């Protein structure tokens, strides 16, 4: 990240837009250029830093996000760079964090807050459902609530109970929340900046098992893309991506399941079956167009997600695809999801998680004529 540090008096003083802009410029210059092997963690961290440079109203807070840089180090260095008025620890209370963020967003700030783990966002559920999701609608848009709630979610990290919940369905079902979840390093940067730019609240679901996965990513190119999008009023928001093209069947996945789906597609290719993989990216809004285009083409689909299957985002995808593509379907849409059991202890999570074999089994079940 940028070695440029605002002086402590600047960082602690009333934030000046001019200073911030200058710092942002310097940061861009100081950063190494060209594609680099970068982790998702680093991409998210850079997105926050760039957003904070660009806009003095962007604040970061939560539990342990200051000196420690968060338990996953996603906010590493932000306090040092921007001072503790702009990135700070709160008392240990999630409803407090979200509720305070609502008030700050009502009063001109753009808070980006961290829930330490998925299950530890539940104490804030009332604030999220009854206020974050409803304030804009309640006030007929006179109050905008530009805030991002970052939630490290899902499993596969050998975490103890309460540290691996897939909680996206709770938010996706709540009208008034956008729900994003990146699956690639570049999307980590791209989508978090878009989330921070959004005038509406965004639940930003970060697949924690991908935090340390690396891709070759050119941060400068992403910055330029963001700048261009901002200038043109465009964005990738609400769009799914074809993560791998294919022709025989469609795997629809998001977040932590995308790499698994890609691995399954690679394995299927060896067996001569061409699977298209769709990375949903944005759960709300949902990109019916991209998803349905693929299913209409392939005629078969498997939806993959880590969360319990019952009344889930995966159920929704199945429901809407069958509504929209019914006559293109050669077989029922299959789901490969977490079982309807509490997320298991580390030594058992392997049996719970949708894996390559389970996906391939589901693909095999798609009533092939051959």
């Amino acid at each position, binding site marked *: 990240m940028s070695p440029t540090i605002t002086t402590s008096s600047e960082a*602690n*003083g*009333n*934030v000046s837009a001019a200073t911030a802009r200058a710092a942002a410029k310097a940061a861009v210059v100081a950063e190494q250029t060209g594609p680099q092997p970068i982790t998702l963690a680093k991409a998210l961290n850079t997105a926050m830093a760039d957003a904070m440079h660009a806009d003095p109203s962007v*604040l970061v807070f939560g539990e342990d996000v200051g000196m420690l840089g968060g338990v996953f180090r996603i906010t590493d260095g932000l306090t040092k760079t921007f*001072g*503790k*008025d702009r990135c*700070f620890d*709160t*008392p240990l*209370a999630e*409803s*407090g964090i*979200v*509720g*305070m*963020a*609502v*008030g*700050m*967003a*009502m*009063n*001109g*700030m753009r*808070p980006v807050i961290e829930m330490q783990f998925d299950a530890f966002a539940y*104490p804030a559920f*009332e*604030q999220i459902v*009854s*206020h974050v999701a*409803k304030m*804009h*609608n*309640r*006030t*007929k*848009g*006179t*109050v*905008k609530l530009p805030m991002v709630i970052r939630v490290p979610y899902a499993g596969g990290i050998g975490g103890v109970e309460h540290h691996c919940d897939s909680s996206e369905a709770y938010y996706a079902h709540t*009208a*008034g929340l*956008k729900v994003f979840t990146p699956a690639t390093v570049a999307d980590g940067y791209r989508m978090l900046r878009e989330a921070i730019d*959004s*005038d*509406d609240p965004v639940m930003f679901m970060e697949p924690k098992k991908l935090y340390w996965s690396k891709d070759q990513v050119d941060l400068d190119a992403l910055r330029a893309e963001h700048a261009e999008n901002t200038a043109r009023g465009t964005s990738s928001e*609400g769009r799914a991506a074809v993560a791998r093209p294919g022709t025989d069947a469609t795997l629809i996945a998001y977040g932590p399941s995308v790499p698994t789906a890609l691995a399954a597609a690679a394995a299927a290719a060896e067996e001569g079956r061409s699977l298209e993989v769709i990375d949903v990216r944005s759960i*709300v*809004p*949902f990109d*019916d*167009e991209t998803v349905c285009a693929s299913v209409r083409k392939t005629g078969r689909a498997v939806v993959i997600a880590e969360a319990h299957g019952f009344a889930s985002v995966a159920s929704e995808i199945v429901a809407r695809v069958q509504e929209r593509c019914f006559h293109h379907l050669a077989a029922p849409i299959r789901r490969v999801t977490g079982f309807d059991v509490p997320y298991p202890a580390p030594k058992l999570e392997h049996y719970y998680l949708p894996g390559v074999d389970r996906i391939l089994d589901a693909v095999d079940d798609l009533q092939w004529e051959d």
Partner: protein
Amino acid sequence: MTISAEAPEDAASEAVRKFGITVEDYMLPARHQIQMVGPDGTLNPHTEQGTQPGHEYALPGDEELLAAYEQLVVGRRVNDQNSALVRQGRMAVYPSSHGQEACQVAAALCLSDGDWMFPTYRDSVAVMARGVDPVQTMTLFRGDWHGGYDPAKHKVGIQCTPLTTQLLHGVGVAHAAKLRGEDTVVLAMCGDGATSEGDFHEALNFAAVFHLPVVFFVQNNQYAISVPLAHQSVAPSLAHKAVGYGMAGERVDGNDMVALLAVLGRAVRLAREGSGPLLVEAHTYRMQAHTNADDATRYRQDSEVAQWVAKDPLSRMETYLTDRGLLDDERAAGIAEKAEAVATQLREGLSEEVPVEPQDLFKYVFSTPTPQLKEQSALLADELSREEAAK
């Protein structure tokens, strides 16, 4: 300015130094509730106002008292008018603050223009006293929309139902303002029952740790729907809860307009000067049922209610001001006229049938509707046009 837990000197130690009291004496409310004017309308001798070192209060000025009295009369009229409108079916529900008007008025008057108020469903009179249009204020209870005014314009949160959630919004507003170096004070309001909720705890603690200019104002009207105070708390008073946050607490006679102006006025001043948050508990009484939908005879005796009639905030203030020679018949008539004008405004505004716009369902969910919402909106539009055609 740095907002952090290591604020240079905290409010408590500053008070200890300044007032020469212990930190507990700073945080604990005065041993008796602050009362300046008794139920019979006469000024208490200074020694019997409940004040003590570190908790001294000056009598508000005449103009302030008169302005407050006017709002009191208006507030009572608003309560009674709205209850009547509910009975006539012009409004769905109304949680009346009848009997609590002194608290309502003081809450509005203690704030400056740049300050914010975060009211509950019961605080319609405070919202109006703060300057929000009466008819707009009633939008929620009329059932047209969830809120009828622009919070940012009036610096008043939408009257909040999920108990104590709004206190945290107040904390956030104060925090944002402090970060920008503005001297905004936030008055965050809730009831006695609400103090039992987790968000109450989190809001007070956040405000204290970040040393924010928030005055928490609890109207203890003795009931949470049917549940009396004794089932909410066995603390000596709700103001004692301040101690757990290292915050100053105070309790005041919530039917004494004069004491309320003094206590809330001082709290707002201290908050603005950087003392951090304060907690004020007003002892008052919910004279009517929780809302028109409630039946208070199921859980309390008429005799209890009767006792509080004698403590009415309006008649007390009227006697006091009349005795002081500040209020005469002419002035009183002028005030009554103003109150009647507001009542008329309410009656007329609420008898007008405002047509609802079905498409509003989809318009404000997000800044720009999602494709899904556009689809659903088209579905409804189609349905309605077919209905229209079938007519």
